[in-house]
């Protein structure tokens, strides 16, 4: 995570193992260091945020322009500012399936709700 120590300096400290592993892998793949990786990631994310803030979508397609997929993350959804969670077709269909065929409550959930209403 980052903290600003002066207008000209930004110190970062990432401590969770999965993020460190991802960053290390990316640095190895790109042959770059911490600072360049951070600059590159910031370039891309800054651009993405500015796009969604103007109502545009971040998408990827193949060379023919077919099969577009949309990038949606909690941070980009928040940047979009419309309180919308955008799901692609597969995810949205699964969401609808869960709604149409809900499972029975688990015993853990029943126990939890019993505690909730006992208070």
């Amino acid at each position, binding site marked *: 995570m980052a903290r600003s120590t002066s207008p000209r300096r930004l110190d970062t400290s990432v*401590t969770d193992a999965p993020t460190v592993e991802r960053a290390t892998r990316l640095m190895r793949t790109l042959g770059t260091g911490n600072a360049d990786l951070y600059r590159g990631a910031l370039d891309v994310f800054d651009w993405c945020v500015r796009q969604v803030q103007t109502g545009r979508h971040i998408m990827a397609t193949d060379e023919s322009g077919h099969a577009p997929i949309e990038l949606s993350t*909690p941070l980009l959804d928040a940047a979009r500012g419309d309180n919308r969670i955008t799901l*692609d077709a597969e995810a949205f269909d699964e969401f*609808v*399936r869960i709604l149409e065929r809900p499972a029975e409550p688990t015993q853990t959930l029943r126990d939890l709700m019993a505690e909730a209403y006992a208070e």
Partner: protein
Amino acid sequence: MIIRHVEPSDTKGGFRCGVPALDTFFSKRAWTQHNKDDANRVYVLVDEASGEVLGFYTLCAKEVARSRLEGIVSRSAPPHPLGVFYIGYFAVAESHQGRGLGRRLMADALRRCVEAADTIAAVGVFLDSLDDDSTAFYHRLGFVDIPRAPGAPEGGPQPMFLPMTVIRAARPVPP
């Protein structure tokens, strides 16, 4: 222990859960989002005797929509976005983890969602799980994984959903 709305003094106590992003949110933005922006309601679990914040969670309303970029819409897809409650942040203090406080917070959150759904329509509770332990906890409660978007960052948050019908059905039967 009590669960109540966050207060300014809560955020100055150096809350640490082990996930820097959650700690930063709580110390820097929780009060503003709760009190000024109305972006989240922030609930804290507090030790009444010491005033220590043992955990917190946030709730807000969102809508789930299908990406408009894809042309084929399944027949079962609803025509409009669907309202959900969203647990955006959920954390237990590092020094108090393993004591069942997460259960206590989640029980409170789901009860509030059920009660709020009597006033504002919502089809369920949505959240993004940050790690495997949390995902296992949510699975035990019946949360179902929502597939991540193709190309989503590896190791990124896992979207999960629990329908309101399931939560309501889990409520205790009145005597």
